């Protein structure tokens, strides 16, 4: 089991002390993904807290691995509006994915117009 976890890049664990709180660890990632996901989670009104840290700045250099933790505590919206932390993360990733996809499409479209029929290379 621990072997299995060690090969995972994304590890999520519920926090046993606080309800609706979990810790997400993404290996080999840094602020680029951490800050993006943290920020997107905060946009979800049902997420109460979301933060990330890189435990040690040098870890990446020594092990070529970066551990990144995202803590989040979604709070319960009175009745049926509640959402579990994994769901919130999936939603955030999904929303960002869709946004970047749109940006990429429009970028390529515009670039083509700019380049005209001149070959790109």
């Amino acid at each position, binding site marked *: 089991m621990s072997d299995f976890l060690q090969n995972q890049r994304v590890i999520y664990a519920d926090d046993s002390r606080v309800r609706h709180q979990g810790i997400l660890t993404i290996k080999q990632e840094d602020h680029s*993904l951490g*800050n*993006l996901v943290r920020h997107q989670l905060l946009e979800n009104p049902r997420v109460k807290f979301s933060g990330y840290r890189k435990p040690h700045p040098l870890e990446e250099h020594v092990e070529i691995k970066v551990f990144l933790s995202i803590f989040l505590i979604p709070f319960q919206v009175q009745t049926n509006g509640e959402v579990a932390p994994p769901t919130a993360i999936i939603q955030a*990733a999904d929303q960002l*994915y869709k946004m970047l996809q749109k940006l990429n499409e429009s970028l390529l479209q*515009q670039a083509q117009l700019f380049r005209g029929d001149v070959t790109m290379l």
Partner: protein
Amino acid sequence: MYGMEQINTATGFANAKFGSSKGQGAKGFDEPEIRILELSKYVIKFELLNTDLSVANSLRRIIIAEVPTMAIDLVEVKENTSALHDEFIAHRLGLIPLQSFNVDQFNLSDQCACSSMCAQCSVQFKLHAVCSDRDQMEVNTRHIQPLSDAPIIPVQYVNDKGIEEDPILIMKLSKNQQLDMNLVARKGNGKIHAKWSPVATCQMRKEPIVEIDQDKINRDLDIEKRKEFVALCPREVFAFNDYRNAVEIENSDKCIQCIECLRFAQANNLERAVKIAEREDKFVFTVESTGVLTPEDIVSRALQILMRKLYELGTQMKKYGVNAD
């Protein structure tokens, strides 16, 4: 402020995310957008609109450090009788930009199935230069001979008129000096070493806002003071209109937020007449490629890398299920 129906759809997300930070109503938002301002062979300038700092900064970081390219990584020195020592030359060779349009067909060397090196993860070159018949000779990127037909070759810069520039100078040899090396290029990214970074510049800035109360300034300041006000800005944001004898904003885009104008206004009891700020939802990017990839390709690849990361995060999270209690 948040409507429940706005969650979990692409548009609803834009609503919740960007509408809220600017305090706009539910309807008053715009979709995130990229607008190319300039595009040339090596430089792209574009605006990223209606997102926030976290998106813009992630994009910047990925462009600099995580877009993979090819660079010379291993140098086997067979003969070096030049004035420069081996490591010095090897370092220079590493920094030579290699055309990486086909970088996707290669594996990272530590993820490749082979034990040390193969055609899937490396490209071999030969560098052989002898200075026998001259007093001095230049060794440049033309001396780097590919040993395979992989389309990874040193970048040949082309100027605005489409004319090839001189190849990149590596070093000089004087009479009877010789250089004989085997080079191996590998795939990597800027996180590992800056030589793999595809960009020379990746700059991001918020668009400045400069506002002046023209009536107030032109009423309360005499002409000399007005001219002084125009002259004090180091970036020539303001202009003095000789016909109207008035201060005008000429180019607010150039402002560097030095608040020199604000200080002047305060000293002259005109606190409210000058406003300096930055737009929080608009970022202007300038990305200058080293020639290894086209600039728009770099940005597009960076977006795709971010997308891949998020996709992986999303799918990996699904196995943890939705066990809300």
